[in-house]
């Protein structure tokens, strides 16, 4: 048996924007085991429900994550609306869907950039982020914020988008799509990129299921599961089919995300076609009493919000399960047996968002 060494990876590491610490047990260059530790940036946001009333907490929920912020706010609103039996107007549901998909596109572009950066392809990284900036501009124009949208509230949406603006957005998205596809081509066909991702970090379909993987990590292993299939917001009306790949390696996970960008643009197009004029919010009266589990599909996978209210204006308990937390166990399984140099790429393919995993 050769010598085993433990190499610490993170919480501060050039490829990691997020503070997760992994103890990598290596034999020569091969990783035998990875032991994670998290808890560097716990902020106690769940406890804060006792201090912020249920309407104000939307602002906090949105700040749980800096990238999928909108969907966090949306899921929280969905939980409270269900407890209070609030019927959200159709137009608001469509707007929520459009913003969710815009946030998915910008999150996936961000991820593509970071991944290119992790294997040292700097120009590809910059091109991905240049495109992301264009999407952020659309978001800023329609919601007022770049990453913290602040456009969702209990009972509907805070802002409307005019139909002229919706058409303009659609035109812009289609023109950006050509550029995104050009970048996508490089990710999927470039020899060096393929060399770094194909056959690396394998996760079988059975493992993906039993270890509880979520999001692109799960769908890249051939499991067609996406919470959008449950039809929350207006996904039920527009019809939704998930993007699935079967290989289960880093390349498949990258491919799922690239294809999801196209799928998101199609979803936005359907929403723009189907959206009708109408109110964007209903008046919220009274206080919530009851409990509910709300689920939604974030760019990184399924998020679960459990809200329990007791008839006062403060919730009694809020529990958030973020996708990254669910993906840590499958990540450890994929790290076993990989080469040390592949660790950054594999870690990035779960699209880690540790800040939201710790809340």
């Amino acid at each position, binding site marked *: 048996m050769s010598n085993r060494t433990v190499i610490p990876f993170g919480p501060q590491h050039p490829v990691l924007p997020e503070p997760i610490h992994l103890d990598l047990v290596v034999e020569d260059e091969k990783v035998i085991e990875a032991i994670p530790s998290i808890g560097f940036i716990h902020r106690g946001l769940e406890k804060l429900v006792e201090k*912020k009333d249920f309407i104000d907490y939307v602002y906090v929920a949105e700040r749980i994550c800096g990238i999928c912020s909108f969907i966090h706010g949306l899921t929280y609103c969905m939980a409270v609306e269900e407890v209070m039996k609030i019927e959200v107007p159709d137009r608001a549901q469509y707007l929520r869907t459009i913003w969710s998909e815009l946030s998915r596109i910008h999150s996936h572009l961000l991820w593509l950039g970071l991944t290119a950066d992790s294997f040292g392809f700097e120009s590809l990284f910059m091109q991905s982020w240049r495109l992301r900036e264009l999407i952020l501009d659309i978001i800023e124009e*329609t*919601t*007022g914020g770049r990453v913290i949208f602040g456009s969702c509230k209990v009972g509907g949406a*805070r802002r409307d988008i005019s139909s002229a603006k919706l058409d303009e957005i659609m035109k812009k998205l289609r023109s950006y799509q050509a550029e995104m596809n*050009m970048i996508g081509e490089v990710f999927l066909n470039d*020899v060096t990129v393929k060399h770094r991702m194909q056959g690396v970090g394998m996760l079988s379909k059975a493992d993906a299921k039993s270890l509880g993987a979520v999001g692109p990590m799960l769908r890249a292993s051939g499991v067609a599961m996406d919470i959008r299939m449950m039809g929350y917001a207006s996904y039920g009306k527009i019809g939704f089919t998930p993007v699935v790949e079967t290989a289960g390696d880093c390349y498949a996970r990258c491919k799922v995300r690239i294809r999801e960008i196209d799928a998101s643009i199609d979803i936005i197009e359907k929403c723009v076609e189907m959206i009708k004029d109408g109110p964007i919010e209903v008046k919220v009266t009274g206080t919530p009493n009851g409990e509910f589990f709300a689920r939604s599909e974030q760019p990184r996978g399924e998020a679960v919000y459990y809200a329990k209210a007791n008839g006062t204006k403060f919730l009694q308990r809020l529990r958030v399960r973020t996708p990254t937390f669910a993906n840590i166990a499958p990540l450890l399984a994929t790290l076993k047996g990989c080469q040390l140099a592949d660790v950054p790429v594999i870690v990035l393919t779960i699209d880690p968002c540790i800040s939201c995993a710790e809340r």
Partner: protein
Amino acid sequence: MCLLGMTKTVLKNLFSGPTTERYPFVAKKFLSGTRGKVDIEIEKCIYCGICQRKCPTAAILVTKEPKTWAVNRMSCISCNACVEVCPKKCLALNVKYSACAEKPYQDSFGPEKPHA
């Protein structure tokens, strides 16, 4: 297989200028919908304090005696809540952000001598 997939993009980059804004030589363009800093038309304000109660970060301080309206720029998260609730519609979010500073600072308004 493709070896030089980025060639087209690289060539395009060679002949076009930089994508980034040349700030501060070129002024920053703000988008029309941006939520920047909160502005008040103080003549219209009736000092009712509704905005203060609805602000999620307690950034606003309104006093009736003396008549002052103040906002802590660093606490404000530009959420638009105060703008939505003001009965006199005297608040608005400007597209420009508030200035950077080293310490928290307050902007006070009012006919009488505003407190610091």
